[in-house]
């Protein structure tokens, strides 16, 4: 699920795994050609973005702020870890689909360690031994398979995406065993628990974006384009299994050429 936030997922630390073939073609991720907005639906997207921003301002953002300010950090961290742990089946499936079996093994190991020693996922015990989260989704798998992202799309309430990641987001929901348990289980609590999980995920994803988005809105002449560019740069890192702290290769990412004066 992309979530009701304006960036599908906050950037997650991921080790520089075996670089997928994509990194070769996707190298100069920041085409400096200012015209390549790849946003044919821009007028519609802008209107929806404006609607989303307003809805967010009165709903999700205040909730996320309250959550950040009133729920103690250890509790938020525990909830975050548990939510991440519940996503393990999706991470596992997609590392497998990407043929990245080393990372599949890490996902499995993490799930076992964190579900037991980590008390049902509340503590990220596996990260302490160096097995950090391998965040994968079907949109990334499609990218690794060579599917282009297509034009920028702004969904009402769901936020920014593109055709590839939209398909990916739907696939993530329906490939999640917990979704089917939530929908079909005879257990009365299954449905409410599932919706609680989705709700918490929305808030958990929105929290790290409170400050960056406020900052961006305040300092931009064109907030829509500022967000569009940020979303794309972040997504490119996720697909390449990089974290923001990793150095980009020559000519890629922010290592574009700048004229010498």
């Amino acid at each position, binding site marked *: 699920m992309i979530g009701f936030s304006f960036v599908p997922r906050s*950037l997650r630390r991921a080790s520089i795994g075996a670089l997928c073939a994509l990194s070769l*073609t*996707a*190298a*100069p*991720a*920041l*085409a*400096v*050609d*200012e*015209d*390549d*907005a*790849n946003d044919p639906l821009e*007028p519609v997207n*802008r*209107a929806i973005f*404006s609607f989303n921003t307003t809805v967010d301002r009165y709903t999700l953002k205040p909730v996320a702020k309250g959550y950040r300010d009133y729920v103690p950090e250890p509790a938020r961290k525990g909830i975050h870890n548990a939510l991440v742990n519940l996503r393990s089946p999706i991470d596992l499936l997609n590392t497998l689909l990407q043929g990245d079996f080393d990372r599949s093994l890490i996902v499995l190991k993490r799930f076992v360690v964190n579900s037991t020693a980590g008390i049902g996922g509340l503590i990220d015990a596996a990260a302490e031994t160096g097995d950090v989260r391998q965040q994968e989704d079907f949109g990334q798998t499609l990218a690794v398979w060579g599917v*282009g*992202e*297509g034009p920028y799309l702004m969904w009402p309430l769901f936020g920014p995406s593109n055709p590839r990641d939209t398909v990916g987001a739907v696939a993530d929901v329906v490939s999640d065993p917990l979704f089917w348990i939530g929908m079909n289980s005879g257990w009365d609590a299954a449905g409410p628990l599932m919706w609680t999980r989705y709700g918490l995920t929305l808030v958990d994803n929105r929290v*790290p974006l409170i400050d*960056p988005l406020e*900052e961006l*809105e*305040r*300092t*931009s*002449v*064109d*907030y*829509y*384009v*500022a967000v*569009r*560019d*940020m979303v794309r*740069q*972040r997504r490119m*890192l996720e697909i390449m299994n*990089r974290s*923001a*702290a990793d*150095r*980009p290769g*020559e*000519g890629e*990412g*922010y*290592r*574009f*050429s*700048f*004229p*010498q*004066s």
Partner: protein
Amino acid sequence: MFDVIRRGALALRGAALALLLVLPGTAQAADTEAATRFVTKLVDTAINDVIGAQISHREREERFRELFVEAADIPAIAAFVVGREWRGASEKQKQEFVGLFQDVSILTWISHLDEYKDVRVEVTGAYQDKSDVFVESQVRTQGKPIPIVWRVQERQGGQLKLIDVVIEANSMLINTRKQYASVMRRDGGFEGLVRALTRMRDDLRAGKEPQPLPEG
């Protein structure tokens, strides 16, 4: 998408080539140690003498302006963020734009400097890429540290200049350039951009939050 990227790559290579032809022998390599010292000093000065100092708002703005103008190559940055429309502008327009861009940059930063009171910056590394040095740092306010990379270029005479700030792998230079391209496309080219930035500057001066562009 790959098409777009490939085209971008070609354009980039073309631009790099053109530069090599136009500016023979100007490429100088800033060394990583000097660049690291430059960034460390810049950040320390900003924290100790501007953000953390017990001075009036007016004085703070003055000091920040001084530091910013000294450290950053504003004319080069301004030319880059405007992109291809820069070539069509007259000398006078260019000069005015550099001043305007400088004001807007300073005013956007200055209006929220208070929020960075408890900021701590730790320089963690640096690497060289042709003539530029990327100085890596971790910036802590509250919560998780944010990776920020400072891009430094050497000028003739050995002076170092800041040309980009990369926040969580997001180049501010590219982000700004994309925004400006959009404003120019939607709202009357270079002159439209000047109008939008002038409005932004006036709003910031008046202490108002800048109004976003009308949609449509």
